[in-house]
Each structure stands twice: as C-alpha cells, then as structure tokens.
C-alpha cells in the first residue's frame, strides 16, 4: 500500500482483455511511461471504489513468465517485488485450456491474487458452460467469470477483488507441485533451494524455472547459494536436458485438472472431414492428391477454351491481311514479317494465355478454398522424406508459376544443402510458360488426347523429382537432417471471387506482355536467318541445321525442333517464336524440308503436317524439362552462390531433357 492507496496489477496473456479491463476501471485517469531502464511500456491508472483509492498497473501482455523477453522479466520482477497488493490474473474463457497457462506459470509466486475469466460472452456463444465456483474450490483464490467490455457489471469484480485483498488469498498449487515431483531433477533441486532464496519466489517456482533452463533464474540461484549447496546445485543442473518439456506437461495437466468438471462444453468435436481423412491416409493420400491435381488441370480447360478459340480467330486474319498486302504490292519480306512473324506470334501468345488463365484461376480457387494447403500437406510429407524441410513446399508451388520466383523463395531455407536441393528439384516443376505452351501444342497435335500428354508430363515430373532428389540429395543433405513436420490445415473457405478474378486477369495480362517480348524478337531473328532470296541452300540456318540433324534425330528431334529446344533455354516461349518463324509460309526452309509448296490454311497446320506425333511428343518433353530460362539460371546462382552447383544443375537438366525426349520419342513410335 502506498499513501493509503491499494495497488492492483493486471496479469494476462495478450488478448486476454487486460487493456479493456484497465480502461473500464480507470476511465481517463491513466498515464503511460516506461519501466525503469527498459523500453517496456508501463501503464498506470487509478479509480476509487467504496471510498478507497486504487492504483492499477497494466502489465505487458506476455505468453508466460519465462526469461524470453524484457517484458516477461519486467512482469515477473514487478509481481514478485510485492509492489502490488493483489495480482489480478486474466484468462480468456473462450480458450481456457490455453490461456490459463499464465496462471500455471505464475503458480509459486507468493502474492495475493484472484482469477478473472474474461470474455465470458464469447465462451457463452461457443456453448461453454463455465462454473467459476468449482474452479475457485480447486485453486483457493476468488474466481470470477465476466466480460471486461460490459462496464456496467463490474460489481462482482469489485467483490472478488475486495475478498482477495481482505483474505490475502494465495493460489493453491499443491497438485501442480505433485506433478513437478515426477520431473527429473526437480526433487533434487528442492532439497537445495529453499523458499525465498530469491526474494518473492517460492522454492517450487524457482526449482521449476531452474529445471526449465531459465538463465536469469539459474544465475540468481547460483548467486544466492554458496559452498556445498552451490556445488551440488551446479552438478544437478548439468544433468538436466529439455526440462521445459516435462514442466510444460505438468502445467497443462494441472490446467486440465482444474477445468475438468468446471467447464461443460456442448461437445462439437471437430471430426476430420472425409477429404482430410483421405489425403492424410498413408495409402490413399498421394493418389487422391494426384487425382485432384489432374482434375484441376482438366477443369482449367473450361475457361481456357474460349481464349484459345480467340487465338484461332487471330490466325484467320492472316488470309485477308496477306491478300490486302499482296494487292498493295508489298514486298514478300514485309508480308513475311507482318503475317508470319507478328500476326502468328500474337495468335500463338493468345492461345498460350488460354491455359495459363485457366490454370491460374483453378489453382487460385484451390488455394482460397483450402484445398491447396491439403495438396501441399501431402507434398510436405514426401518432401521431408527426400530430406527437405517442410518449407521447401513453397518454392515448389511458386515454381508452378515461375521458377525464378521459386528459386528466390528458397531464401527462407536456412540449411545450405537443403536450399540447393530445393532449387535443383524446383527446376523440374514445369513453370507457367510451360503450362501455357504445352497445352497449346498438345491440343494442336493431339486434339482431345492432348490432355493425356499433360497428365503424362505431370507423372514424369514426379518421377523426375524423385530421381533427381536421389542423385543430388546424397551430396547435399545428411540423413540426420531429415525431420518430420506437423501441419495445421486451414479450414475450408469460399473463394473471394472478386479479388481472385482481379488477380487472374492481372497475371494473364503480365504474362501476355512478357511472352510477346520474347517471342517476337526470337521469331524475327530466326525468320531472317532462314530467309534467303537465292533459295534454301542460301540460308545460314539450313546449313547449320542439316549439319547437326544426324545427332538431333537420335533424340527424336528434327533440326528445327532442336533449334526451338535450344531457344527454349532462353525462355520457354522462345521455342514458339522459333517454330513460328521456321514453319512460316514465306520462309524458304519449310519448302525445302517438305519438298512441296502446297498451300495450307495457316502455319499451325503447316506445323502439324510436318512434324510427326512422336516427334511432337519428344519435343514437348524436351522443352518442359529443359532448364527453365536464363533468368532462372541467374536466380539460382544468386541464391546458391555456387558456380559449381549452378553449372551442375544446368548440365543435368539439359542432359535429362534430351534423354526424356529420346524416351518420349520411342514410346511415341510404339503407341502411335
């Protein structure tokens, strides 16, 4: 008591409603300062009740009373100093099993106190029936169930407070102590440490904190001890390991014991949903997820189709524009540039955007609804088996959009080897550009069967990642680094359509400009390289192409496709630029290769007529699993800081893409 005023301290975890109660009690009579020597805010206020004047100290909201932060140390030192006549401990009634932890951590500090079970209204809405009297009988201090927001009903709060002050009620923690006695080292310490060895704290509290490894408390005890006791204290301390696990269990068990019979909840036990049960099942999980992903891809075709058709419409402009330009006596070069390069590039880009749009929309929906988290859960699971942290799932998912983003987001992984492995594996994930090009090519060549190609690519992706993890993993992660994870799955939500659509359109627009920027220059360069006024033999490209063809044929790639493959290393869309140029109607290459000059509707048709199914298949696998793009290469170097590993990864992917092409070609020959 200071100058006849009584001091109350408010103690509770964040969001237990301390500030609300503080404001409710003191109104405007408050001032804010700092705790001496600390940058921790000190709030004090005052009020009068029944003619008595009270000072209220709002302590910082902390999770516990360990030495984890300045706030916690300030808080416990203040309470233990006895400066407050009574400590008002707040707990959130809507989650007592959690928020009573503060009470459990307080147990053993010998000052008068009472317990406020705040947010009573919220608990009531949850269907919880809390009996404060029962709790009171178990812990020996006044307990009140209230809502700090309901200022008009503070009467029983005052009653409680006055009772605690009058009777100097102390918390009965004998049953918690019984729990502590089973903890390794606790009883030994108990024989060394006596009550009040450090002022304000009981031996129970000091021993528990010493077991937990609280550095500040351990130092204080060591200072207070001397001679033989000090030596045996130090010896005991050395034997302790992770004592906080055991004392934590005791505290939670004590809370449950208090709540048992005091809280009746109309049990709305959250059972795992069917889908959650399916994906978390050891046997079915992966299968279900693979089916969901494939389903999502199929679904992506629905919004994709209209846009792909739009791309087809752009192609139809070819005929009228070509005729108009010819009639206007435009030079063949100009017609070539406009119709074969610009127009076809635009048409192909629009077609590519179709699927990119669809997939972004569908997977955005998956994400918002909580399905994506479940997919990533199954990935996580596999991830840690490959020696990666659960966090690696993010770079993977981001890589579906863009490998550069994937490489950058591996920054959160702190283990160097795991980081490199993550990036190395993320390269195998087809990026957004691949997801745009492959469906376009697949549907052009195989129509409805194109879907099967996409499924095949996904399956190969999984196998690829698995094999790559075996090859690279051995050198990058040690067995003992491989730990499990626990994941909290978010509840299911309805997607927020407006923001989702805005995002999908924004992303599609970005992609359009990005693709156009690559595709048109590449197309122009190749078109000029293949153009020659004196016939095929005159073009540089033809000479180089026919020279290397014997080798490229081995992988199932004609030299044109091989050049497109090389261009895809710059950026996947580059491949489309090359194809557009090489299979244009005015380009002389095509005539030479096909040996005829028959007129076809457009260059897409030309493409289809001149590339066999197996070749197309080989090509699609080659560009999908090729290195993602030069920028991704740079990003990889930037994140790994290792020229050696960046080079290894690059060579590995170039080689594996060609091997996959070879396999795809031969499988194609067998089945087509």
């Amino acid at each position, binding site marked *: 008591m200071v100058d006849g005023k009584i001091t109350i301290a408010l103690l509770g975890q964040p969001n237990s409603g301390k500030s609300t109660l503080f404001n409710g009690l003191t109104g405007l009579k408050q001032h804010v300062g700092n705790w001496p020597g600390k940058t921790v805010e000190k709030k004090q206020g005052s009020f009068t009740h029944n003619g008595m004047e009270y000072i209220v100290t709002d302590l910082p909201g902390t*999770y*516990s009373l*360990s030495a984890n932060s300045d706030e916690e140390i300030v808080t416990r030192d203040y309470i233990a100093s006895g400066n407050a006549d009574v400590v008002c401990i707040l707990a959130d009634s809507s*989650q007592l*099993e*959690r928020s009573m932890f503060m009470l459990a951590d307080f147990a053993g500090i010998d000052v008068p106190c009472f317990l406020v079970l705040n947010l009573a209204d919220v608990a009531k809405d949850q269907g919880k029936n809390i009996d404060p009297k029962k709790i009171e009988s178990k812990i020996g201090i006044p307990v009140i169930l209230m809502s700090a927001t309901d200022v008009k009903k503070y009467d029983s709060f005052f009653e409680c407070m006055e009772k605690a002050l009058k009777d100097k009620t102390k918390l009965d923690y004998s049953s918690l102590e019984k729990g502590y006695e089973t903890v390794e080292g606790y009883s030994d310490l108990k024989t060394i440490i006596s009550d009040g060895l450090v002022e304000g704290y009981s031996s129970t509290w000091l021993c528990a904190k010493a077991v937990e490894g609280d550095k500040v408390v351990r130092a204080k005890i060591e200072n207070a001890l001397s001679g033989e006791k000090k030596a045996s204290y130090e010896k005991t301390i050395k034997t302790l390991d*992770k004592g906080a*696990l*055991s004392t*934590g*269990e005791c505290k*939670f068990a004590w809370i449950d014991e208090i709540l048992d019979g005091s809280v009746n909840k109309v049990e709305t*036990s*959250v059972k*795992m949903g069917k889908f*959650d049960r399916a994906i*978390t099942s050891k046997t079915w999980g992966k299968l279900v997820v693979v089916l969901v992903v494939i389903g999502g891809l199929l679904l992506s075709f629905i919004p994709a189709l209209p846009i792909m058709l739009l791309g087809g419409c752009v192609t139809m402009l070819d005929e009228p524009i070509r005729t108009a330009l010819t009639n206007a006596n435009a030079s063949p070069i100009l017609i070539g540039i406009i119709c074969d390069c610009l127009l076809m590039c635009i048409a192909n880009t629009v077609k590519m955007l179709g699927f990119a749009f669809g997939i972004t929309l569908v997977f*955005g929906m998956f*994400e*918002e*609804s*909580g399905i*994506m*988290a479940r997919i*990533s*859960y199954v990935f*996580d699971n596999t991830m*840690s*088996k490959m020696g990666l*942290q659960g*966090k690696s*799932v*993010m770079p993977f*998912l*981001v890589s579906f*959009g*863009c490998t*550069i*983003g994937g490489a*950058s*987001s591996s*920054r959160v992984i702190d283990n160097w080897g795991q980081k490199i492995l993550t990036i190395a594996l993320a390269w195998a994930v087809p990026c957004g550009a691949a997801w745009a090009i492959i469906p376009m090519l697949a549907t052009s060549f195989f129509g409805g069967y194109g879907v099967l190609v996409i499924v095949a690519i996904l399956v190969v992706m999984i196998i690829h990642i698995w094999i790559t993890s075996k090859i690279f993993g051995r050198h990058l992660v040690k067995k003992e680094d*491989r*730990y*499990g994870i*626990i*994941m*909290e*799955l*978010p509840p299911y*939500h309805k997607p*927020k359509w407006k*923001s*989702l659509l805005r*995002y999908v359109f*924004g992303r599609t627009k*970005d992609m359009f*400009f990005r693709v156009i920027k690559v595709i048109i220059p590449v197309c122009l360069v190749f078109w000029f390289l293949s153009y020659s006024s004196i016939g095929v033999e005159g073009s540089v490209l033809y000479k180089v192409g026919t020279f290397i063809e014997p080798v490229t044929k081995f992988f199932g790639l004609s030299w044109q496709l091989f050049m497109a493959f090389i261009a895809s290393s710059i950026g996947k869309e580059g491949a489309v630029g090359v194809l557009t140029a090489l299979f244009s109607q005015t380009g002389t290459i095509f005539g030479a290769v096909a040996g005829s000059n028959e007129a076809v509707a457009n260059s897409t048709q030309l493409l289809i007529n001149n590339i066999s199914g197996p070749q197309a298949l080989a090509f699609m696998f080659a560009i999908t699993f090729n290195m993602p793009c030069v*920028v991704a290469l740079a*990003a990889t170097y930037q994140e790994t800081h290792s020229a050696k590993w960046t080079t290894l990864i690059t060579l590995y992917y170039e080689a594996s893409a060609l091997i996959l092409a070879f396999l795809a070609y031969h499988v194609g020959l067998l089945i087509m």
Partner: protein
Amino acid sequence: MDMRNLMNLLKSGECCSTAMLAERMGTTVSDVERTLEYLERIGVLRRTRLGMIECADCGSCSSGKGGGQCKGCMPENGFQNMGTIWEIADT
C-alpha cells in the same frame, strides 16, 4: 500430451496433421495446438506460416521488378491460406 513422445515422432521423420496427431495421441486438437504453441515459445519447434509471400523480384510480372511484394503473383490478402507447419528448430 507427452511432449517427448511428440519430439521423438518428429525426429523419426514422421509427418502428420494436427488432427491426426490428436487422434494418435488420444487427445484433442486444442491440446495439440497449445502444446505446439508452447514448444514454439520455448524454442524447440519452429513455426512457418505457408503462403505466397516471398515473391519479390520474381521477374515474371510487371510489379515484381522494383522489389517489394509482387502483386501480380497473388491476390490482395490472398494466398495466405496454405496452413501452418511446425518442424524441429535447428538449434
């Protein structure tokens, strides 16, 4: 809930959801949640909220170039719904 048991489970490379863990340990989800919270507080576990937040400078969109958060890569306040994972802290 037996915390040492939980840690051993993680060390053995086991992965599970909080709901599964509750079932396995014969306890409630809220007990699992408070235990995880506690283990995180004492620095034994590390918690990561998954979400598409680390996407500065991805280069794939117009807004990513200048650093900062890449708006083109996610809806506003979106893509935060990927769940939370706990793993053993390195220390």
